[in-house]
C-alpha cells in the first residue's frame, strides 16, 4: 500500500502505535513508535497524538516524531486544540494541563486542576467551547466540570457523581458519555439532561457526529441516534472505545474495539467488517480531514 499524506488518511490509535489507511480498511504503521495511542488530534496539517507516556507531534516517515511532553505530562487520554503554540490542552490521569514553549523550544506544561479532588482530577476527555477557546468542558471520573478563563476558574456541572468518558460538541449542543448512565446532552456544558432513551444504564466511551446523527461507542457495540428518540444498537457487541464517521461519505463509519480490533461499515451499520493489519485494541480513530 502506498502511503498517503497524513491529512488524507484514516488514522487509528492502537495499544502499540499509530496506523494509517487510505480506505479505512487496510492499515499500515506510522513510524516505529510502539506507544499506546489514546487520542489523535489534527487540524490544519498538524497531527498530535496523546499516548500512555505523554504526547507527540507526528511527522511523516522518515522524520522522527517530536516530543511534546515534559517531566510532568504523562498518561494522556485526550487532546484538544486551543490558540497558541503548541496550542494544546491535555486531559490526563493526573488532570488538565496546557503547554507553552520554553527558551529551549521544549514544551513545558502548566497544571490547572491540582486543587481538585482525586476523581475530579482524573480527566478522560476534554472539549473546547467553539465560541470561547478558553472555556473547556471536562469529562472526569467525578462527572463534568467546566473550566473557564483557561483553567483558572472551575465550575461543577449538573452531571456529577458518575465517571464521564467522552465529551463532544456537536449539532449545536454538548454531549457526554457516562459510565453506567448513558448519554447526556447540554446546551452550555453546565446543565445536563438525559439524551434519548434505551441506553439508560449504558456505558459510553466515545462520541462523534456524522451527518446529523450521534454515534457512540459503548460497552456493547455502537449506538446511533439523534439524542431524542431511541438509541439503536449496531455492530459487534464489543467494548467500543472509539468511533468516527467519514466527513463526506455519510454511511462510512469506523469503530475501534478494546479489544476486538477496528470495524468498518459502509452502510450505516447494517454490516461491519474487521480492518486488517491492526492490533486488537483500538482506542482512537480519526477520519480523513474534510474531504
Amino acid at each position, binding site marked *: 500500500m502506498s502511503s498517503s499524506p497524513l491529512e488524507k488518511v484514516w488514522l487509528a490509535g492502537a495499544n502499540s502505535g499509530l496506523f494509517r489507511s487510505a480506505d479505512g480498511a487496510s492499515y499500515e504503521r506510522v513510524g516505529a*513508535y*510502539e506507544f499506546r495511542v489514546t487520542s489523535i488530534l489534527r487540524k490544519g496539517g498538524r497531527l498530535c497524538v496523546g499516548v*500512555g507516556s505523554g504526547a507527540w507531534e507526528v511527522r511523516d516517515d522518515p522524520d522522527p516524531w517530536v516530543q511534546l511532553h515534559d517531566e*510532568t505530562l504523562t*498518561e494522556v487520554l485526550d487532546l484538544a486544540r486551543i490558540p497558541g503554540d503548541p496550542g494544546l490542552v491535555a486531559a490526563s490521569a493526573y488532570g488538565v494541563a496546557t503547554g507553552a514553549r520554553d527558551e529551549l523550544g521544549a514544551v513545558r506544561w502548566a497544571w490547572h486542576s491540582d486543587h481538585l479532588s482525586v476523581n475530579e482530577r482524573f480527566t478522560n476527555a476534554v472539549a473546547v467551547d467553539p465560541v470561547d477557546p478558553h472555556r473547556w468542558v471536562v469529562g472526569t471520573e467525578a462527572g463534568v466540570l467546566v473550566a473557564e478563563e483557561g483553567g483558572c476558574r472551575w465550575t461543577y456541572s449538573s452531571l456529577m457523581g458518575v465517571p464521564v468518558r467522552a465529551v463532544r460538541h456537536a449539532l449545536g449542543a454538548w454531549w457526554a458519555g457516562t459510565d453506567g448512565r448513558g448519554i447526556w446532552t447540554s446546551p452550555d456544558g453546565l446543565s445536563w439532561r438525559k439524551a434519548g432513551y434505551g441506553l439508560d444504564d449504558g456505558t459510553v466511551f466515545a462520541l462523534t457526529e456524522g451527518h446529523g446523527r450521534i454515534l457512540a461507542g459503548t460497552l456493547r457495540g455502537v449506538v446511533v441516534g439523534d439524542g431524542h428518540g431511541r438509541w439503536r444498537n449496531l455492530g459487534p457487541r464489543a467494548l467500543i472505545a472509539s468511533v468516527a464517521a467519514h466527513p463526506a461519505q455519510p454511511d462510512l463509519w469506523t469503530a475501534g474495539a478494546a479489544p476486538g480490533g477496528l470495524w468498518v461499515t459502509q452502510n450505516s451499520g447494517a454490516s461491519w467488517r474487521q480492518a486488517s493489519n491492526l492490533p486488537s485494541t483500538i482506542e482512537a480513530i480519526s477520519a480523513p480531514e474534510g474531504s
Partner: protein
Amino acid sequence: MTRKEYDAELEARGRQFLEPVARSAASLWGAHAILAMGGDPQRVAEIIQARLGSRPAGPFGRVATGTFDVLAAMTLICRWGDLLPEPAHARVREALTRGILHRGNTENHWLMHYAGTLLATERWPDVEVWGNGLSREATRAEATRWILGMIDRTARLGHYEYDSTQYHPCHLLSMIALTDHARDPRLRALAGRMATLYVADMALEYFHGAWAGGHSREGYRQNTWTLVGASASLGFYYFGDAPFDPEVHRDEMACPAMTARFRPPPLLADLARDRSKPRVVKKTKAPRAIYRHADREARPVRKYTYLSPSFALGSTQVNLPGAPAGPIDLVSWDLSWAGPKHQATLVCGHPCLSPGRFSAFLSGLPQAIGRAVAAPKPYLQNPDRLFGASPYERMMQHESALLVLYRIPPEDPAPYVNLYLPKAVAWTEREGWVLGDAGAFYVGLRPVGDCRWQEIWEEGHLDGYLIRVEGRDVGLALEAEEARSVGTFDNFCEEMVSPRLDLSGWPEPGRVRFETLGGHELELIYDGPHRVDGTEIDYASWPLYEAPGVEAPPGAGRILFCLKGERLELDFEVDPSRPMLPMRVIG
C-alpha cells in the same frame, strides 16, 4: 570499621560475586563483570549488539529501547568506554541519541530513563537534535529537572517506590551512575548522597542477607522467599553477614554497583550488621499515587520494623484512600528469619480481586483492565495470592507483636485471608493458637476466623502451607520471642495460650486487644486509633527515619546517622518553600 577495612571487604565480596557471573554473563548488566574481571571487550560488544534495543521491520524502523537497557548501556559506555571497540560505541550512541526511548510508567523506569539520557547528552555533545525531536540542551534540561526534583521530593517526603527488593537496585544504580559520571558537580553530589541514603535504607533493615519489613514492591510471587533478586546480591556486597550462595547471589543487575567508584561509608555496613540488641526502625515514605476511584488522597506510608537477633517483624501503615485501591505488588508485613527459600517467612494477605485495584493507578478502561493486566500475569488474580495490598487490611505493631484485621465487604469475591506458613517449622496447635519452634526463637499466631490448612506449591515460586482464614471479619494476632528469653518451647506455648487476646469487641464494634508477652497491651480499632498501653500511636508525628543513632526531622531533607563515635550526615539542601516535583509515576 575503617575505610580501608571496608574497601578490602568490598573487593573480596565483589570478586566472589563477579568472577562466576563474568563466565556466563549475557546481559548488559553482566557485561560489567566481564570487563571488571579482565574479559574480552569484543564479547561485551557482541552483547551490546544483541541486547540493546529492537528495530521494528520496515523501511523506517528505528531502534527502540526500554529504560533498563538505557541505563545499563550508558553505564557500560561511561565506565568501560576506553576498552570498548568502536562498533559498541556506535550502537549505544545510535540507540540513545537517535532511537525511540520508552520512558515507562514507574519511578524506577523514569529514573533509569532520565539518568541514562542525561549521561548520553553529556557524552555526545555533538548531537544537536535528539531522537525525540528536541535539542540536546532541551533533553538534558528535562532530565536534570526530573532527577533533581526526584531527589528533593525523596529527601522531603521519603522514597516513593520504597524499599523494593526487586526495584531498589534500579534506583541505586541510577544514582551511582550519576555520582560517578555526571558532569554537573551539584547533581553529582546530590546523587551521591541519595545513593548513600538508598544503601542506608537497606542497612537499617538488613537481616542476615535479607531485607526485612514492608516493601512497596516485592515482585510477583517472591514474598515468601528469604533472599530476593538483585537487592540480595547488593546486600551481600555492601554488608556481608551472610554466606555467599551462588544460587542466590548471581543477579547480573548488581554488577555495575560492584564495579563502580561509588562506595558507601563503612558506617552503614556497621549499622547493617549491628544486631547486638533488638531495635525498632521507623520510616516514613511518600504516599501512594492513587489517581481515581478515591474520595481522598493517600496519606504518607509509615513503616515499623522490629529487628531481634534471630527474627525480624515488619509492618506498614499503607494509608490507602479506600477500596478498591491496592497496589498490586506491595507487601505490607511479614515475619522473617534466616533460612532457606520458602522456609523462613510468615505472611498473610487478602487477595483482593477487583479490577479497580488496577484502574486506580493505571489509566486503562476499568471495564477492560482486569483482563488486560492479568492475561499475561494470571498470578495477579490468583485466589491463593499472598502479595499485593488489600484495601481492607488494618494493622498495628509494637516490638515483636502484631495485630492484623480485615473487614471484607459482601461484594468482594474473596471472603478470606491467605496465611503462609513454612513447612520447615514444626507447628503446634493449642486452643486456637498455632505455635512454632524455629530454634532460636518461637512464634505464636492466633488466626481470627475459621481456618483450613492447605498446601501451596508452585515450582520455583512457592512451597509451604496455605492457611485459609475464612470469613469477612478476620485477622491475626502474632508474637515472636527469642528462645533464650522464655526458656523452653512448652513455656512459650503456655504463656501464649493464656487469655491474651480479647475479641469481645470484634467484629462489633471493631476493637481487638492483645496483651503481649512483654506485658504491653495493644488495642486496634478498625478504622480507628491504634493504642499501646492506652496511648494512641501518633503516626503523623513520625520523622522520616527513627532508629537508634538515626535522626531525620520530617521535611528537613537532612538525615543524621551516628554509630560508635562515627557520624554521617546527608544534607539534601532542600528549600521547604519551593514546590515539589509532582509524582507522575507508579511505585
